[in-house]
Structure formats: C-alpha cells, structure tokens
C-alpha cells in the first residue's frame, strides 16, 4: 500500500502547486475576456503573411549562418576544453585537482547560456562573439562532466598495459583510453550541439547576435511579419540541425 511518507510528499507537492498559483496572482479573468481574446487574435493576425522580400531573406540567411556558426564553434571549443578538464575531473591528476575541477564544472554548468551571455557581453561586447563564448562556457561544464564519467567507466586494462610497458600517462591516454571512448564523446557532443542550436537562436535576445537579435529587434518595433519570418527560419534551422545530428550519430554508432 501507499506509505504515509509518500502521501505526505504528494501533499507537499500539491501545497507547492497551490502556493505557486496563489502567490503569482495570474489575472485569468483578463486573459479570457472577450476583449483580451480579440486583441490576442489581432496580435496573431499581424504575423500573416510572413515577410518574404528578397533583401529580408538575405538578412535572415546571414542571421542563420551567424547562429549556426555560434552553435558549432561554441560546441567545438567546449569539446576541446571539456576533454582537457575531464582528465583531472576523472581523477588522473590526484584527488585535489579532481575536487577543484568538479566544483568549477558544476558552476559552469548550472549557470545557463543566456546568463553567461549577459555577463560575457561586458568583456566581449555586443555581438555573436559573446554568444559563442557563452555557449562554449556552459557546454564545457556539461561535456566536461559527461566526459569525466565516460573516462571513469572505461575498462582500464589497455591503458595500464601501455603504462606498464613504459609509455607516458598522456601517450597511454591517447593510444588506449581515447580511442575507446571517442564515439561516445562524439555522440554526447552532437547531442549538445542540437541543444546549443536552440540556445544560440535565442541568445540574441540579450544582444549576443544571431536570429534572436533580429527577432527581438523586429518585435520591439512591432514588425510582426518580419518576426514571423525569423521564427519560421529558426524552426527550419532547428529541424535541419536535428536531422543532421541524428544522421551523424547513427553513423557513429553503426560502425
């Protein structure tokens, strides 16, 4: 039967939900009045038809390229740095280094890309470079931890054998450990790339370049048709990247 502790837990969850709705004072009434519905519909109608003029499409293409570049570079940098940090994080350079690096990675990971972007704008200035760095920083935290776990769960024999025969620790890592986990690392990275393309699309909202910046700009001028085109471009780009990454990951795991 259901334990009392579980009942208490469910009651607690219910209380959390009730308290949340209570404290937020959401104006439901205003959401569903005839007036509100009418004005929302009007707002939505403003989106159609999406702007399809050639010069604007070129601008969207540029924005898409910028977003794609941010996500790919950010993920690439995070792969390299994350692998570098995963070595100490998997305990290869002692317990102190491990604890320290783990703390750093946790910090990098728990602050989302957008918050990093806001902070990095100060150092890197407005534009896609800040966005790239923000993606790289957050993703380093995520990948570093995943890579370290992969390294720790690895069969150690190939590496120990090389070390027993006199290879240096780093050489043994590159000849025995890395080839074993590389497919796994690549698949984690591609997965993160799918995630980062979504993040890159919105980073522009705080001024860090890409399609998000265009969206924010046109929305703030109430140019809904342009905004609609940007949103459609985002959706298309995300779909294409998902497809590519799925295809790459399948190829990686198949052979």
């Amino acid at each position, binding site marked *: 039967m259901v334990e009392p502790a579980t009942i208490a837990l469910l009651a607690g969850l219910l209380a959390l*939900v009730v*308290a949340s709705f209570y404290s*937020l004072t959401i*104006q439901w009434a205003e*959401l569903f009045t005839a007036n509100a519905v009418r*004005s929302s519909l009007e707002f939505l109608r403003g989106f159609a038809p999406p702007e399809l003029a050639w010069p604007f499409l070129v601008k969207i293409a540029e924005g898409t390229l910028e977003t794609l570049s941010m996500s790919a570079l950010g993920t690439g940098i995070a792969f390299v740095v994350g692998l570098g940090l995963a070595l100490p994080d998997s305990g290869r350079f002692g317990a102190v280094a491990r604890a320290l690096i783990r703390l750093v990675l*946790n910090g990098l990971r728990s602050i989302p890309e957008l918050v990093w972007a806001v902070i990095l704008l100060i*150092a890197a200035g407005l534009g*896609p*470079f800040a966005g790239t760095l923000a993606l790289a920083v957050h993703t380093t935290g995520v990948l570093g931890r995943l890579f370290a776990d992969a390294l720790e769960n690895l069969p150690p024999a190939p590496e120990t054998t090389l070390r027993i025969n006199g290879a240096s620790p780093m050489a043994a890592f590159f000849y025995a450990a890395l080839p074993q986990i590389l497919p796994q690392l690549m698949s984690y990275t591609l997965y993160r790339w799918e995630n980062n393309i979504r993040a890159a699309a919105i980073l522009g909202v705080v001024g860090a370049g890409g399609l998000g910046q265009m969206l924010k700009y046109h929305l703030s001028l109430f140019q809904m048709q342009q905004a609609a085109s940007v949103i459609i471009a985002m959706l298309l780009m995300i779909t294409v990247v998902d497809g590519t990454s799925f295809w790459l990951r399948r190829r990686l795991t198949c052979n």
Partner: protein
Amino acid sequence: MILNAASAHHPDPAWRGRITAALVALFLLWPMLIASEFKPWTLLDAQSLGSTWHFLSGFFPPAHSREFLLLMLEATWQTISIATAGLTLALLGAIPLTLLATKSLSVSLLESGRMRLAGAVIRQGARWLLVLLRSVPELVWALLLVRIVGLGPTAGVLAIALTYIGMLGKVYAEILESSEAHATQSLLKNGSGRLAALFYGALPASAAELVSYTTFRWECAIRGSVVMGFVGAGGIGQRMDESMKMLAGDEVFTMLIIFVLLVACADLVSTFLRKRLA
C-alpha cells in the same frame, strides 16, 4: 621525417580521406569564424579588460543587505512558482493531447487493423500541434506573450506551459507506446474504454518513467524561468537583468550564487522525488 613516410611501402589508405576531411573542416570553419566575429584578442584590449575588471571587482563583497536578501527571497520564490505553475498547466494540457496522440490507445486500429480516417487525422493533428509547441523555444514564447499579456510572471507561466505541453506530450506518448502494449490492448479488446485502458493498462507499467521525466522537466523549468526573466517575465532573471544594466557587480554575484544553489537544490529535490515516487 614524417613526410618521408609518404613514400613508405605501405601507405595509409585512410590518409587521403583524412586530408580531405581536414580541408573540408577548414573550409567550413573559416566562414564560421567570420560570421561569429570570432576575435578572441578583443577580450584582451585595454578597454575590454578595464570594463571587465571594473565589473568583476564589484563582485566582492556580494550584496547582502537585509532588504536585498528579502527581495531575492521573493524573486527566488517567484522563479520557483513560475516553474511549478507552468509545469502544472503543461501537465493539464499534455495529458489530453497525449491520449489523442498515443497509437496504442486507438480503438479503431484494434477493430479493423487500421485507424478510422477521422481518428488518424485527429491523431496526426495532435502530433503536429505538439511538434509546433515544443519547437518554438520557450524564450520566444515568452517574448511573444509579454506583448500579449504584458510584463510579469503570467507571460512566464504561459510560456513554460506552452513549450512543456509539447515536450511532455511527445515523451509521454513515447513512453506509453514503448510500455508493454499487451495489457492495454487486451483491455481495449474486452471492451473497456480508452481511459480505463490507460489507467489499468499502460499507466501502471510506465508510471515510474513518467514521474521521473516530469520531475526532470521541473528542474529544466526552473532554469527556464530564470532565463525568461530577462525578457520581462518576472522572477530572479528579471532582477538580474536590472542589476546587470546598472553594472551592480555585488548584486549580480549574489544572484549567481543563489542561482547555483537553486539549481543544485532543484537537482536534489528531483532526484529525491524520482527515488520516492518511481
């Protein structure tokens, strides 16, 4: 010495492919570096270093006055409640859509071996709706909703609700379909309704997975509700946006600490919930 190996008796058959791949990668990398204005040295010019230093030096000591902490407490609670309320609404929306989208709960499929046309159309429609809802990033929903319902937490709640209906609906349907179809099917065959089949067939088999995924999403919703504050949807994100605009490093640092703690706590709570309920 390494180039000499090119004339070796046993050339590497993969070498040409590797060179090609490297060239292609460089060819792709170049426009990317340009498009993303990748200029790391700008980080090191005097002006950028100066403003960074100025901002970072404001970090210590972190802001800790009584009023500020109270304000933070309120903002943190708002963030949590936006996430919780949003996820609750998402659940309310996702469950009916899941029922529509799940193939193994189809009655007509069972009877004739294929779905009735109307059923198939509704099912496909529900799936497309779910795809649309989850493909638009939550921040974009928030941006749009802020313009409809005005600044404040309502936009955040609705944005989370819309995105997460799509995510929950998709994954719930997948979980239910991958769970043992046998129990559900035999219930449907014996004439029980779709809901009964769900409650007595599919649900018990996959309850643990459903709960676990929902708590994981709650954790994500908390991060999401922080981020949405930056477009004016309330909570700690909005406070951070204000402090950043004033370059108040001490306040930003406090918020970053609160933020890391909040994420860590959400992680703990969701792990605990998963253990307890799953």
